[in-house]
């Protein structure tokens, strides 16, 4: 039995946990305000809110309902556009009207929900954050300028928000109906533990599997990991940072530990899909999907991550770079799953960079991505790890390139020589994300970009090209 609250109503359903939350909302509950645009998480028309009770507090985020297996809603408060409607328009809705930010209206409920999620956040609002909140919403009519203005004006209104108790503030300021104040109590009455079939297909946030084979998932046994509190969280001990396998990209972005050691994590992760997808997609899901271009795979390869694989009572630890064997082939036994990801704490001399280029800068799959971690002693590279995606059958740790750079002095000559080795190490193919020639050139450029960014005093594009 899946139990959750949809808007103000308690839902108890025997529907298959692998059917989509979207279909349940639209056709099961006849709430047609949540729209179907693509069923791939690429348009945001079906955006809803997911509220989670943690430490007596309900926190909300935007999720994509077409990719959410219904089972992931268990124990949550799910809010569709109907659930925020009041007699008068909310300030979010009003801003959209005032700035003429709606034309055909089909994408509009999605934008309203994303901006409402932004309003509910326990962070201070800025225009940039408001726009990031709608980075997963596609509008084909307006050209976005009016939507930008609406987002900006909402952000202005939110300047006075009480970030300690956003829900109370939001209700008081007519962003939300009053029933939101009772949700915490209602959620606490739902039994969260849920019996799960073992040895079934594991599904996390659904952001890959629900795109690839929704029909299969809607009918087969599935093992839901999304809400497994034992697999969440980001911790640090003396030498390592440990990330639970069900941690999602947003949690990593917001983690003070990650921010301390990777001060650029926010701009880097902003290149990865969209805010609602980052709210859903798990780190282990990205690894296990084994896409040669998986952003998190590339990011963590350069960090020399290890993964802990678990099967009932047995665990083993392997380097992430040994996890990828061949195209979509993993060093993963039947019944095994990733329990956690462990990275060494970067020391003070370490610097890190992540690069990604895709046809569209945001909410797109990379043509090529690359990450690098350098340990620098003045202009000497003490240690180096480079990874690249989209240039091989697997997310590639560039071991030869990395080895070559160790101990070298950073000069344009070194970088050029390293690029020659790098070009030998990769085998890109021509596909819809670019031709082989393009991917080779692009990776060279991204490789250059790492050094131009990290060592601007010794490396410049001009000299690399001359």
């Amino acid at each position, binding site marked *: 039995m899946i139990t959750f609250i949809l808007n103000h109503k308690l839902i108890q359903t025997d529907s298959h946990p692998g059917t989509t939350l979207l279909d349940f909302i639209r056709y099961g509950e006849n709430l047609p305000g949540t*729209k179907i645009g693509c069923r791939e998480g690429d348009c945001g028309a079906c955006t809803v809110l997911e509220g989670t009770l943690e430490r007596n507090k309900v926190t909300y985020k935007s999720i994509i309902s077409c990719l959410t297996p219904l089972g992931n809603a268990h124990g949550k408060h799910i809010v569709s556009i109907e659930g925020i409607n009041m007699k008068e328009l909310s300030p979010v809705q009003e801003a959209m009207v005032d700035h003429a930010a709606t034309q055909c209206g089909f994408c509009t409920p999605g934008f309203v929900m994303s901006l409402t999620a932004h309003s509910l956040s326990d962070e201070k609002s800025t225009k940039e954050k408001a726009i990031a909140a709608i980075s997963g919403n596609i509008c084909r009519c307006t050209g976005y300028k009016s939507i930008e203005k609406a987002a900006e004006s909402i952000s202005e209104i939110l300047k006075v928000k009480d970030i300690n108790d956003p829900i109370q503030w939001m209700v008081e300021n007519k962003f939300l109906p009053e029933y939101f104040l009772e949700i915490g109590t209602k959620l606490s009455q739902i039994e969260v533990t849920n019996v799960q079939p073992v040895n079934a297909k594991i599904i996390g946030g659904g952001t890959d599997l629900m795109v690839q084979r929704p029909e299969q998932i809607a009918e087969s046994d599935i093992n839901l990991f999304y809400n497994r509190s034992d697999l969440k969280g980001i911790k640090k001990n003396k030498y390592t940072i440990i990330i639970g396998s069900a941690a999602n990209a947003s949690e990593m972005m917001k983690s003070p530990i990650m921010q301390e050691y990777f001060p650029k994590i926010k701009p880097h992760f902003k290149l990865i899909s969209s805010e609602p997808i980052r709210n859903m997609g798990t780190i282990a899901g990205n690894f296990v999907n084994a896409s040669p271009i998986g952003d998190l795979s590339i990011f963590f390869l350069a960090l020399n991550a290890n993964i802990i694989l678990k099967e009932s009572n047995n665990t083993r630890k392997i380097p992430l770079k040994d996890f990828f064997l061949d195209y979509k082939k993993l060093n993963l036994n039947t019944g095994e799953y990733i329990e956690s990801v462990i990275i060494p704490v970067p020391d003070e001399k370490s610097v890190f960079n992540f690069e990604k*280029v895709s046809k569209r800068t945001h909410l797109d799959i990379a043509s090529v991505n690359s990450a690098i971690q350098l340990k620098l002693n003045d202009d000497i590279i003490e240690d180096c790890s480079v990874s690249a995606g989209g240039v091989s059958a697997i997310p590639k740790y560039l071991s030869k390139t990395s080895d070559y750079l160790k101990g070298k002095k950073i000069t344009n000559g070194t970088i050029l020589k390293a690029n020659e080795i790098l070009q030998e190490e990769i085998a890109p193919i021509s596909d819809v994300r670019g031709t082989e020639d393009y991917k080779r050139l692009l990776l060279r450029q991204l490789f250059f970009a790492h050094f131009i960014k990290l060592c601007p005093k010794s490396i410049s594009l001009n000299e690399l090209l001359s």
Partner: protein
Amino acid sequence: MKNIDSKNHVTGKSVYVDDIPVQTGTLHGAVFGSPKAHGKIINLNLSEAEKLEGIEGIFTFKDIPGRNQIGGIIEDEPLFAEHEVHFLGQPVAFVVAENETIARKALKLIKIEIEEWEVITDPREAQKKGHLLIPPRTFKMGNVADEWAKCDFIFEGKVESGGQEHLYIETQGSYAYPMDNGSIKIHSSTQGATLVQKMAARILGVPMHRVEVDVARLGGGFGGKEDQATPYACMAALASYILQKPVKLSLHRLDDMQMTGKRHPYSSDFKIGLSKDYKIVAFQAKMYQNGGAANDLSPAITERTLFHSTNAYYIPNTEVIVYSCKTNLPPNTAYRGFGAPQGMFVIESAIAKAACELNVSKRMIQEKNFIKENDLFQYGQIAENVNINNCYQTADQTYHIDQIEKEIEEFNSKNTNSKKGMAVMPICFGISFTKTPMNQARALVHIYQDGSLGISTGAVEMGQAVNTKMIQVAAKVFSIKTERIKIESTNTTRVANTSPTAASSGADLNGNALRIACENLLERLKQTASKMLLCNVSEVSIENEIVLKNGKKTDILWEQLIETAFLDRIALTENGHYATPVIHFDKTKETGHPFAYHVYGTAVVTVTLDCIRGTYEFDDVKIVHDFGNSMNSIIDNGQVEGALMQGIGWVTMEELAFAKDGKLLSSSLTTYKVPDIYSAPKNVEITALKTEGPELALLRSKAVGEPPFMYGIGAYFALIKAIKAFNSNYKIDFDAPLTPEKVLMRLYQK
């Protein structure tokens, strides 16, 4: 006034086809499309699929009681393939089941055997092999052949422009159910209610009066639902008619992308000749339009390409030929601009090429050749009320183009990792359907006894806020509050024989019909008032819901006037009919006066290019647009911003990739990228050119839907300027869309 739908949109209450509460027993459909792009159907086996529990019927051409034909201009497109398939995804069968899941499962159980024939996706190859949809058409003026010798400079080149997926966020869909007396009602997400009615009647073999088509609103159209909503409405209608049950169809995005036609890709050759003072003396172009597997609207799109092949310039000697080529892609169709963007991209490329080779500024050549009052368009229409130079000069005065150029030069000299580029994009776009008979419309106005109004027109609401403009028209004619007025759905039983809402003309045509209806009603109401006031009709007027006599307020209010008129048995219903005057066009001579008026404008586009990564951001698009006397600047500015973004998308990131076997590779939103919020130019400024506006525009407010799309073309030329600033070896070329891939390859071209 804001879009009247705004409040319902932001609360998710607006109803689209898939939101209509379904009747009990509604069945759901899914379309089986050909897995091959070209060939002969040897065998179609439905038996496995039919056995599936929950299947209510599978329909093929054999089940069509009427004619299996949905071709509009030319009858060359079956609803279901009979013995041959001509594009991948071509509908072969329609599965109807208890629910969508079962219907989609059945699709996988259908077996089809196809003898594969040669697949052609390239228009030049098709033309070479003689596969044309219609005979080629040529627009000529002066004598190109004689003039080359007199030109001081001649340049030639090749231009490619890609197709474009409409990506309306609401996919194609319909809901059909049986009515009394063998009739059927279809709710369709279509821009052309009458077209759906006509084709469904043809398919069912019934008179048009048996088919009622109703359209509440569309979740985006952009031309993609002008002709191509029809098959999906017909399929639901067919199944519903045969099974006598309600049937609903809502295409999955991937099916929609694979099966439906898009903007036509074009491949063109040009030759341009200039005098030493940079006047364009002669222009010649051969354009190969990729029409896809059937005509659809290609003949009309061919025509509009020709009309706009010289954009905003007067070129005394022109000769442009368009081959509409038959290929094995889905039949390409209307998309905002309707062939004009493709034509304008060629002339702009030719000018860019000349400017680059002569090492002069492109905008200097553009400015020298703007069309002037009383010049002749190459189709014989005299240019009147020409505003292109006004727009350009206003842009220069408002935005200081010299200064922008200077700043860019300075930026480029200081920065090596990034470069900026700028381009000026003038536009000139003719308003009217180029097929003269389509320029007619009707509106039905009821004034109810309580003084409220219900208005029906042939216009379809799809976000362009045509319904809002309709309310403005009625409110203005009667001088009453907008709250009194309701716009009804577009319905073929209330307004018949409608033209599709297209060609930017929805407001002009339907609004003028509505204006006429309201004016006729007003005249009758004034007569009633004159009786009440015992005065002459000429002394009566209405202002702010109060009847005036000789300009002075009386105590007769609107509601009282209506009640009196009703009791006096005055007709409070009126049908207005409008046909655009003046226009005509003779296809045998390719001359005439096809347009009611032209829309002009100028955009200044600037871009910053990341020369390390090949990515780019548009800094500014500064526009001076000729709205006429805009009746609603909020809505009209929204149209400009939206069209601009689509135009930028077309020439930058929106890339359709077809495999050699005709399969669309970019068949999902994962692989086909449209602009997101971060792709929008950082700053968009729109200045309205101050004019009175033409009489033939609705309330002198010019049509606005399509013209601003072409501002986006400026993005291409700004980008190539930036590339050239980084890599002087780069030989400028014209191959849209200029994706980050193409940009990077050009940045490092040797």
